[in-house]
């Protein structure tokens, strides 16, 4: 078997090991989804605000939920703790590319996250009524955007994990990452509601691809050419961050210290 596939498979099997922890972590995302749904339902009950009406917001929030769950259920802790604990030493002496190996593992672990997203999405749609699907071309573009969401989220998580080489600690980084991603990706509130200068900055940032881009395409607010541009930006950031992460890794290797044992 290809070495990267073997790693992916090992991770795919490992994710079931901590079901309790997974359920609790999932609870966090679920509560956030329910809270946001409740708030926006009230806010939008008297008709649309700006460009969003209630059914659109519902779909958009589901995308935000998916973006939180994908590569968000422990993959970040796993990568970070190997660095903080120094077990990364054993990863370095494996004949595989470090970044591709971690990517393969994230890929192996994503199946259960996708399953959860589909389940929760389905249940929500049943409870709150269905959603308006955009046309075929938008649906295809939306799926492309969701596919790109995976490497993009991986890279954000991976690079924040690499930061542990400098900080030796993960919690602060994680909080910072979650705060930045929530705001700039539009997961907390759609970018259209931010002050215009901030919205513009966020729109072109790598984070927009994590919620805003697929969300807007799904609810039909990025029609035609605009949708393609947004997905192209997403792709641009995937490629750029992949290369940047390599640079970061090389820098980290030069200053790596592994204490004890």
């Amino acid at each position: 078997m290809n070495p990267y596939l073997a790693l992916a498979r090992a991770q795919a099997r490992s994710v079931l090991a901590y079901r309790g922890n997974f359920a609790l972590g999932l609870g966090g995302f679920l509560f956030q989804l329910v809270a946001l749904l409740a708030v926006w339902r009230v806010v939008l009950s008297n008709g649309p605000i700006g460009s969003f009406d209630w059914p659109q917001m519902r779909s958009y929030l589901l995308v935000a939920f998916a973006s939180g769950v994908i590569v968000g259920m422990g993959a970040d802790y796993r990568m970070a703790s190997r660095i903080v604990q120094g077990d990364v030493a054993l990863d370095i002496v494996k004949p595989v590319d470090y970044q591709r190996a971690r990517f393969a593992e994230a890929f192996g672990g994503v199946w259960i996250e996708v399953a959860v997203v589909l389940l929760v999405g389905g249940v929500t749609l049943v409870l709150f009524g269905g959603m308006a699907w955009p046309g075929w071309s938008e649906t295809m573009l939306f799926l492309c955007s969701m596919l790109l969401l995976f490497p993009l989220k991986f890279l954000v998580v991976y690079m924040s994990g690499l930061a542990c080489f400098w900080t030796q600690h993960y919690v602060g980084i994680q909080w910072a990452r979650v705060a930045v991603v929530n705001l700039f990706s539009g997961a907390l509130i759609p970018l259209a509601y931010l002050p215009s200068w901030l919205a513009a900055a966020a729109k072109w940032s790598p984070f927009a691809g994590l919620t805003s881009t697929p969300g807007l395409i799904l609810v039909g607010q990025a029609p035609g050419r605009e949708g393609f541009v947004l997905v192209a930006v997403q792709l641009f950031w995937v490629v750029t961050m992949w290369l940047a992460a390599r640079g970061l890794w090389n820098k980290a290797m030069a200053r790596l210290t592994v204490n004890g044992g």
Partner: protein
Amino acid sequence: MNPAPDLANGCEGPTTAEEFRRIWPDTRAFHTVEGRAVAIVEAEQMTKVFRRPDKGPGLRGSLKHLFVRRFDDKVAVDHVDLSIEAGEAVAYVGPNGAGKSTSVKLLSGILVPTSGTVRIDGLSPQKDREEVAKRIGVLFGQRTQLWWDLPVRESFAVLRDLYSIDHGTFRQRLARFNEVLELEELMPVLGRKLSLGQRMRADLAAAMLHAPRVVYLDEPTIGLDLSVKDRVRQFFRTVRDEGTTVMLTSHDLGDIEGFCRRLVIVDTGRVIFDGDLKAVKDAFARERILHVETETAVPLDTAREILPNAVVTAGENPTRFSIRFDRFVLTAGHVIGAVTALSNVVDFSVDEPGIEDVIRRVYSGDLQLAGEAA
């Protein structure tokens, strides 16, 4: 999907020497030039400097450090030259903090030297990390490379794929390891459920599965009980005999004895001795301490009189005492005989000095080893 290896399915290790060499190449064969072994691991002026924050004492110091950053350079490994030939077994010893682990991490390519060079099989571990990784095996006694949440057999299967080992070779190697390490019972156990001894057995196999040309064993017997220790030692002796280059760091003289001929002693990052282990032991580890318990109290002065070449010290009560002697001057039998003449011996034990004692005496200036460096 390939079936997981299962030793219970009657897989046998290689039965002929030829078959054996197919699954277990002799590293010495790759590294000879005109019949002479050449270096497989080479370090030249290898140096590692860690930068650590220099904070003043207390909260005040920590706060001050936020604004005025001062760093302190700690030289962990200091211009080390080392050359290890293919098939050689080398022990690397030194007290805590001497730079042993850091050296191993530099020599295996995990850390980048601050200055100087490291070459493994002629390759730079930084430039050709993946190539180098195929040729080395690493065991850190305090870390595991098993997958925590998978049964041991699955961990082995992942390693098989990581190193692109074909299935037949893989099964035969496992069957061979099984003879010494008794892996069979561990195969269905999850990595995190293994006891320390079980984990070490599985980890040894994991480190050797791809038949590395060089293997680094960093404290491989730390925390193990005697029976597992024996098995682990037997395993790395076998590996050595079959031609793998082994570099071992340990605190435990028992790991080193009967295992390697070459001893490297490091202190504060420098190699202070590099030479023959036996010579060091004969020269310096000659002291023995015999602890005796007798039926009736023995006047220590009498004991001193009949053992003029030994040092007698009192124990916790009058029937217990200790006798320190040089094993080239007196034998344990002679000492026991002398004590028996004074009173019946109820119990006794002998302390041998560990390599650490030798090392400690080297530091204190008692011993001059430098002149013996090979």
